[in-house]
């Protein structure tokens, strides 16, 4: 090879081999190593010697179908990646959508939008599906055969519910104050009192015959996007 390669001492051959194998991005065949090593170097012997040196170590010299490469020891591979637990909150839009699906399932997207009073971003259902908490149910046998959504077993697991029947009913929620108009902690006098009492509470059953509104997809669910981003 190049002249200076001749200068390298015999003792350093194994060091050079080690450096070559370390620095190469691809496994090297014996002939490729021969090309890169000084003339007369016993590449085959050196490889075995090097393999021996690394035998009990964190890094092994592997013969991968006639090509040689350093690889981290297999028994340690699981320690190379660490797990990090990240706790996330759901966006309000996702939370509400999930709650509606839980109470009104099977329910179409248009119906969800109708209850929430805002258009549902496609991503909201995607997020819930990714989490494994909702899944598509049967198609509704009406015009357009819209897809319905239902909750999954994983949903029940997460909230430690044995069945959907365990979800508190409207009356129970009301008595628990969850449907109380006033916020749990009242800090500011509510200015919207003018129109209170106009609307009666609708029961779960009462909501099943909601007309399907238009499927407009207004991007109102910023909070979700942010959460996803």
């Amino acid at each position, binding site marked *: 090879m190049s002249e200076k390669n001749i200068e390298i001492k015999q003792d350093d051959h194994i060091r050079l081999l080690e*450096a070559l194998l*370390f*620095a*190469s*991005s*691809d496994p090297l065949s014996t002939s490729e190593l021969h090309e890169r090593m000084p003339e007369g170097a016993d590449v085959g012997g050196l490889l075995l010697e090097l393999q021996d040196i690394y035998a009990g170590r964190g890094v092994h010299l592997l013969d991968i179908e006639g090509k040689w*490469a*350093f*690889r*981290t020891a297999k028994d340690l*591979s699981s320690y*190379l*990646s*660490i*797990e*990090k*637990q*990240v*706790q*996330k*909150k*759901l966006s*309000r839009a996702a*939370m*509400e959508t*999930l*709650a*509606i699906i*839980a*109470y009104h399932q099977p329910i179409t997207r248009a119906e969800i939008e109708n*209850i*929430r*009073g805002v258009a549902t971003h496609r991503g909201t259902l995607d997020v819930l599906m990714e*989490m494994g908490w909702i899944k598509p149910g049967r198609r509704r046998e009406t015009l357009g055969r819209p897809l319905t959504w239902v909750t999954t077993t994983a949903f029940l697991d*997460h*909230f*430690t*519910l044995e069945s959907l029947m365990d979800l*508190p009913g409207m009356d129970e*929620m009301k008595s*628990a104050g*969850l*449907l*109380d*108009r006033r916020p749990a902690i009242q800090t500011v006098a*509510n200015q*919207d009192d*003018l*129109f*209170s009492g*106009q*609307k009666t*509470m609708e029961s779960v059953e009462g909501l099943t015959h909601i007309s399907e509104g238009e499927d407009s997809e207004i991007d109102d669910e910023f909070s979700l996007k942010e959460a996803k981003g």
Partner: protein
Amino acid sequence: MMQNSAALQDDGAQNAVDEVDQLLLNIEGYEGPIDILLELSRAQKVDLAKISILQLVRQYLEFIERAKTRNLELAAEYLVMAAWLAYLKSRLFLPQEENAEEPTAEEMAEALQFQIRRLEAMQKSAERLQARPQLGQEIFGRGAPEGLEVDIKTSWNVSLYDLLKAYGAIEKRKETSNYDLPTINVMSTEDAMLRLTRMLGNLPRKGMSSVWTTLDSFMLEDISGDRLYSCSVLASTFTAGLELVKQGKLEIRQEGLFRPVYMRSIPVRGEAQDDAGK
């Protein structure tokens, strides 16, 4: 000044001019005035600590002059340096002043020399740095690093309470949804009063009073499309008319049921007298 520079141009004046031309030719390759000065000092082939500042100053000013005659556009810093050097040169020729505020000419020359030597040291360092074995060129890291991964496990911090709360929130929102009062396009009685008074004043007169005019003709044009508005204009105008009658400024007449309503303005007492006076 000219005499001074003439006095300085002793030996090798022609060489200096050639050098300057060389510098101008490669002006793009130089990194500012100190770089040029460094190049000029190197040409003196002496230790940078012993360079002749005067010679340097002369060469630099020469450089600027030549650049000017060649219409070369020099960056501001070249001119700033020229001004500084011209000042330094004059100071070097003047007798030492007893002014503690100002640095002496020697101190200024020293500063210049320091600046040149420091830049030279940095240029040398840059070269030495570049000559070092570099990662990916002479020294290598692991060619095929497996990489250390961070496995992010997301757990959802959502309780049943959150779920129920969210459902409650929807219900709440329904109850407390804002109700916007519809804005209705109508003409107020006040507006009608102003309008009617103005219009009555412009009506043709017959004697003391204006001619009888139908209520309909006080209506706005082009409002037939907005039924509510046209109704309100009619009603308000009539109401305003009644108010004016009460004030004694207007007379209203109708021949019979569903017949046109006629209005005419009558002069109020004061006006009537004025008119009579004429």
